[in-house]
């Protein structure tokens, strides 16, 4: 029975002019989005890897100089694109793409693509994810809002029910029919995209399949939520027109109003400082010392400890190069300050995002987009992981250079003069390995999103229950 209803529904859909037009438009948009996404991804990856290689060479070929100066010269980390960023560009346009790693300073990422984009880019990015998150639900609504209301308006519902068909069978049949209709448009495009990818021999990376399967099932659940909501409202509403208004209203709310409104709320609940405030606070703390003891006092204490350790009484007698040891100590004193400020900031960002996810309870797109970004490697957490990786790299680089200087230049302790200083060459710089960043694994990325999966599951259960309830009390006449 379900089979017949589904087949009738699909036949009706496929013969409908609306279906052809929306199908063609959606398919064109999806292909455009995937193609441009892919093109951007590929050219970004080229640029990123060549920039990283150049910067690594620049580090080595910076010329013979004092190792600490080399640390000042520093290196750049360029952020690699997320493994599926051609599908979901996530926050990539709004995070920096380059981090300057230098002595004494922990820096923000530079070069946000968004600053180089026209304001029109703020309308949104036409990506595969955008289409599946925003346009596909609308298509489902367009194709499905008449499912019951239309049959009632045209009187065929009386016929159908007089045949003794079970109501729920009609529901399942219609769900399958409309679902198949939507799949008919979307799946070929995605398969085409996947085929092109495998031909390009990319994304054979570990975890690719896992990421894909999480994405497919999450988006599938999301589409099912909209499908059953549409059927529920269609059975519930007085007329097709009312169903359409209610559904489009809900769609506009979830797709456009809720994300922005929730963003503003999260900003008010977990406020974050602006650049000027952040820097002023951090530099004030640097000057005062993390625990209120000034760095200069700390250095004096440390000097005394060193004298004691080596049983000496003056800098000249120390077996380590004092200026380098001192600089490393100053560097380490700053670590606490940096950690405190940057971690607080990132924690606030993460809290904001988690709060936004929780609002998925009223707009499922909020939960979905977080999962989608995480699986595409373009989310906030990936960015924070990247920033943490650059900071560890920076600390290691500075420590290695200061450490080398501290040992190698110990004999220079007693003589500051322009003719007597230490230079190092490429071989020494090479003790710092090139920067590498490993994307968080799928497991790590998933751990953050339990709440989102729970929310989406609740939505799906709610939508199915609502549609069953609506169909059970379906009446042939407008209420």
């Amino acid at each position, binding site marked *: 029975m379900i089979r017949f209803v589904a087949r009738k529904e699909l036949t009706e859909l496929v013969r409908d002019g609306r279906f052809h037009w929306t199908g063609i438009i959606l398919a064109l948009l999806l292909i*455009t989005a995937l193609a*441009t996404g892919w093109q951007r991804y590929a*050219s970004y990856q080229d*640029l*990123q890897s060549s*920039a990283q290689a*150049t*910067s690594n060479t*620049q580090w080595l*070929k*910076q010329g*013979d*100089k*004092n190792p600490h*100066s080399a640390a000042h010269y520093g290196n750049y980390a360029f952020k690699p694109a997320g493994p599926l960023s051609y599908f979901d560009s*996530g*926050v990539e*346009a*709004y995070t920096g793409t*380059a981090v300057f790693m230098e002595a004494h300073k922990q820096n923000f990422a*530079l*070069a*946000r*693509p*968004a*600053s*180089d*984009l*026209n*304001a*029109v*880019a*703020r*309308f949104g990015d*036409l990506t595969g994810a*955008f289409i599946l998150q925003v346009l596909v639900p*609308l298509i489902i609504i*367009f194709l499905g809002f008449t499912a019951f209301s239309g049959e009632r308006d045209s009187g065929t519902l009386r016929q159908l029910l007089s045949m003794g068909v079970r109501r729920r069978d009609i529901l399942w049949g219609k769900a399958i029919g409309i679902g198949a209709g939507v799949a008919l448009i979307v799946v070929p495009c995605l398969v085409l995209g996947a085929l092109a990818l495998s031909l390009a021999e990319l994304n054979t990376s570990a975890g690719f399949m896992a990421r894909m399967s999480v994405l497919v099932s999450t988006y599938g659940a999301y589409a099912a939520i909209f499908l059953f909501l549409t059927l529920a409202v269609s059975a519930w509403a007085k007329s097709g*027109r009312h169903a*359409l208004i209610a559904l489009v209203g809900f769609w*506009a709310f979830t797709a456009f*109003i809720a*994300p*922005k409104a929730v*963003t*503003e709320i*999260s*900003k*008010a609940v977990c406020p974050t*400082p*602006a*650049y*000027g*405030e952040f820097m*002023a606070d951090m*530099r004030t703390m640097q000057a005062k010392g993390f625990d209120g003891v000034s760095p200069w006092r700390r250095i004096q204490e440390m000097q005394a400890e060193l004298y004691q350790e080596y049983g000496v009484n003056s800098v000249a007698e120390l077996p380590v190069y004092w200026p380098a040891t001192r600089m490393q100590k100053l560097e380490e004193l700053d670590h606490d300050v940096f950690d405190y400020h940057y971690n607080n900031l990132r924690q606030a*960002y993460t809290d904001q995002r988690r709060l936004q996810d929780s609002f998925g309870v009223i707009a499922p797109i909020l939960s979905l987009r977080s999962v989608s970004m995480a699986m595409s490697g373009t989310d*906030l957490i990936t960015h924070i992981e990247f920033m943490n990786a650059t900071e560890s790299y920076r600390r290691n680089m500075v420590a290695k250079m200061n450490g080398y200087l501290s040992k190698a230049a110990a004999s220079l302790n007693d003589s*500051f003069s*322009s003719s007597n200083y230490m230079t190092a060459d490429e071989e020494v710089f090479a003790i710092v390995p090139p920067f590498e960043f490993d994307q968080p694994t799928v497991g790590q990325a998933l751990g953050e999103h339990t709440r989102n999966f729970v929310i989406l599951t609740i939505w799906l259960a709610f939508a199915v229950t609502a549609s069953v309830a609506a169909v059970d009390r379906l009446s042939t006449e407008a209420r």
Partner: protein
Amino acid sequence: MYALIISHEARSLARTSMLSVLLTVLACAIAFAAWSGRNMIDRQMQGADAAIAFEAGMRDAMRADVIKYEQKIEDEGGEVQFATINHAPGSGPPQGTNAGAVGAETAAYAVLPPTGLAALSIGQSDISLSYVPVNMRNIVDVTRYSEIENPVNLATGAFDISFVIIFLLPIFILALTYGVLSSEKEQGTLAMIMAHPISLRELMTCKLITRFMILLGVVAVAGLASTLAVGTQLDNPETWMRFGFWAGACLLYGMFWFFLAVFVNAMGKSSATNGLILAGSWLLFVVIVPTLVSIVATTLYPAPSRMDLVTASREAQTEASFQYMKALDEFYYDHLELVPNAEDKARDFLTLSIANSEAIEKEVRPLYDQFQSQLNRQEGLVQQYQYLSPAIMMQQALNEVSGTSADRYEDFMGQVFDFHKEWKDYFAVRFLSKDPLVSADYDRFPEFEYRPESLSDVIARLSPALIGLFGVMILAGVAAFVRLRSYQVAAR
């Protein structure tokens, strides 16, 4: 006649529950948007204040040292000396007398003041930093600062009044208008009315005026009330001018959507079909066309990679240091506190550092300009394609009116560059001529003073979008009323 129909329409609308719901939602959205826009501006101002206060503190500390030193010279006799660069605390003239040190270690903030309407349209102001620290570092370093904000929030975009106007207002307009004729026809009252001496155009005009006035009332009252409530100053004639343009743009945009709805109604389809067509048009104009235009602009004129700019400016830096400095010099350049009492040497380092930064700037400036010109080309393309969607024109117009557009920022950065040069010149001359700074000099440091753009510049940039909006509004209006002529009151 007009008054009769309008009052009848108003009464009929008032008796539907939908109207009050719609209007309440709209008023709430406007109030919420005003609140969040104000939060945004407050956060930026707070950032600017904190940064400026911090720098002032640094400078005051230096000045205090100089005053103390001057007091000592007065008491003990002698001459005010030019300090050697030396970070370590000790005796002798303080750092604050050395113009090179002061110019490099403290920064002056160039602040782009928000216009009176900035809270209405956040535009690009959540990305670009509106308070730029200027010191003696090279100019490309000056451009690398940006405002910090959660990237998730940036990607979602702000819930500001512009969003309400561009995205939501059309939805409310269409909700009130999608069945303006079709529902009367379905309800059967259209034939009853048309049996009376009134033309369809008159009827439609009245219906439009009613809906227009209702929405206008809500937008104007809620908008003005919430703008005032969050403290937008309206005491400035320029603000009023800007507000006038803002209101004008909103009127044109709103009328476009009304006429579009009339046009679709004039095709004589059912209300449900009209609803579908209009929802589709909204999606097309507000979502799809803008994202496509954005894709076209970035594909045709991709911004040269910032990553390339980074590596290239680094290359220039390496080159410059090979040419101008020995490795030792560089070491001391980074750590002037380590230089033993060799005054002349120290002065040389700063001289070199100034020369070095000039050299880097010379190398990198063309790259930076190339960057900027590519962005301008992108901008030009968007300017051309904006006519494809009233939403794009509206966005450009609102950002321009609110002073949160890329153009205004570019003008500001031009002023920052000028100021950077002024700052560098002031301190470099004092430094190179070994002229010690005295405490009174601290009040005479160059200060950035923002030169507001002339209103005619703003209007010139605004006019393409406004003219375009006017054009599409007229087009939609004429098409709608022409189409209405062939409208069939009676079904066949």
